[in-house]
């Protein structure tokens, strides 16, 4: 847990469990990961970049080389080679239509759901090519969580939303504890512990998005892909989700697509800047990576003129 975060509320260490949840002591092994779920939120950023805190060298989780995606005839991105490490937040930034989301969706094979989308190149996850013939995309998505642009809770109770992943995956263990743990990690437990059976549609947009994060965390993924997770939220909800990301990265990797450059600067350790290449006929737009470096470098001392123009607001 980040040392600079607010002193943990005593309540967060021993969550008051409703009667049906098992003894709270049984989740003590998770204590190191409990976020400070107090009511008073520290909206100041808690130095999520943890400038000195990133262990070096980092364990590589994703190693992508020459990734390209075609939608039918149209090439959406080409030659994307990026690597993501454990306990790192990587931001993908760039103008609209540059293929950030397309690339993000390659990482858990969500592009498989789009008819006639074709992915080339290599996406190595813990050394395993996710696009090898014998790989089952459903198994891939069990290990790599995803949070979408618009909160998309299921029209079910809060509890059933979080329990959905563990249930379809067939996770062992006490479901009440799994749900509680996920909601605590999603910084939502204190707000919803008394209304777990209520429909998730009754929550505010920010709560819904944190529910979606908790839902994704319930199956214990080691990577969380976030596709503009705050674009539909107000600044306070955005702040909470950014805080949450800073806590989550203590344990997992996050790859986030964002249009908000301040957000990228606040939350990420590394930043990849994408841009659009126009083909000669001016109709084909293909996304490419211009620059990939430590976030500080991208925002203060980029080596490519296009990156500088974008981050300083001259373009895009």
């Amino acid at each position: 847990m980040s040392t600079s975060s607010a002193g943990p509320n005593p309540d967060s260490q021993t969550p008051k469990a409703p009667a049906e949840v098992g003894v709270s002591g049984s989740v003590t092994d998770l204590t190191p990961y409990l976020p400070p779920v107090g009511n008073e939120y520290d909206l100041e950023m808690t130095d999520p970049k943890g400038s000195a805190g990133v262990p070096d060298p980092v364990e590589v989780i994703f190693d992508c080389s020459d990734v390209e995606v075609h939608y039918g005839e149209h090439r959406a991105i080409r030659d994307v080679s990026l690597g993501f490490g454990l306990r790192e937040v990587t931001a993908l930034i760039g103008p609209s239509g540059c293929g950030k989301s397309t690339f993000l969706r390659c990482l858990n094979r969500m592009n498989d759901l789009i008819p006639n989308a074709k992915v080339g190149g290599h996406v190595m996850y813990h050394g395993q090519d996710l696009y090898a013939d014998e790989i089952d995309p459903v198994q891939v998505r069990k290990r790599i969580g995803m949070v979408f642009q618009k909160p998309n809770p299921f029209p079910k109770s809060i509890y059933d939303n979080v329990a959905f992943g563990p249930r379809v995956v067939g996770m062992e263990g006490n479901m009440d504890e799994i749900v509680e743990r996920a909601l605590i990690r999603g910084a939502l437990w204190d707000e919803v512990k008394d209304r777990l059976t209520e429909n998730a549609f009754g929550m505010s947009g920010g709560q819904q998005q944190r529910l979606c994060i908790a839902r994704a965390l319930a199956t214990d993924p080691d990577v969380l892909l976030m596709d503009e997770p705050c674009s539909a939220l107000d600044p306070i909800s955005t702040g909470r989700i950014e805080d949450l990301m800073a806590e989550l990265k203590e344990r997992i990797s996050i790859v986030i697509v964002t249009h908000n450059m301040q957000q990228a600067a606040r939350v990420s350790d590394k930043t990849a800047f994408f841009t659009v290449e126009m083909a000669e006929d001016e109709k084909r737009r293909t996304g490419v990576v211009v620059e990939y470096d430590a976030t500080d470098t991208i925002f203060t001392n980029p080596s490519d003129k296009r990156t500088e123009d974008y981050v300083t607001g001259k373009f895009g």
Partner: protein
Amino acid sequence: MNAVSTTTVERVRADLVRARSARSARESLIKGLLFFAAMLSIATTTAIVVTLLQQTISFFGEISPLSYFAGTKWTPLLSGDQQSFGVLPLLWGTFYLTGIGLLVAVPCGLLAAIYLAEFAKPKVRKSVKPILELLAGMPTIIFGYFALTFVTPVILRDVLGIPVSQFNGLAAGLVLGLLVTPTIASVAEDAMRSVPQSLREGAYGLGAGRLQVALRVVFPAALSGIVAALILGASRAIGETVIILIAGGQSPSMSLNPTGSFQSMASFIAATARGDIPQGTLKYETIFVVGFTLFCVTLLLNAISTRVVARYRQVYE
């Protein structure tokens, strides 16, 4: 300066004031036509209810409601002691045959809907959906003769070896099921297709397989529409006349054994109304009483469906 602005005001005002123009006359004409069209359907319904009520009231002047609603023998066309006005056999025939039909139609219709909405390739869906809708719109007399000349002798007697009478409830009920299957499939498929893609993506993103996405996310999310599809199918079966008239026989029964003859409310009305019963007699009035009963049952079902749909309705942005 002042004068100028005054004339400007007047000119603007002259422009804006509503003029009795050709446009406004045409608009009120169209409005009147639309109003007339809307009123026509209301007036028709009212006229039907009034006609039914008149005869019904007259009927209950002679026969006690108790012997009508609680009587177990329906022989209104006989005379003397043989004559009896208990409607239960007709109600039983209606619901029993509908039940047999739904036993076929609900699983078939829902499975077809799930397949079409979640599993079929777009090409397959594009060609199957219109066929389903065509089937749903086929004249029911064709289904009736199909039941009488194929299902009863070939399927039930020869293939399955069930000793059914020529006119029997089983064949009528099964074919009733075939009739409403496309309706249920089509409406339920529409409901499932209208579930936003973002929910499917959310579920896939959590490691759900296709079947899990279909059954655990899309199906429950579309529940209100699916219930509406089932109730629509049930009302269609309840109001269905010709199949039961042709294949189900014409003697009312309260038996549980579906191999014999049954009569439903609608098929009684059809069978009796084409006969030569003199107007103004008690026998004649039975047509309207049964019609009114059928009307009430259907109305009740529609009311329930509206409430269920409103209750479980999930509005997505």
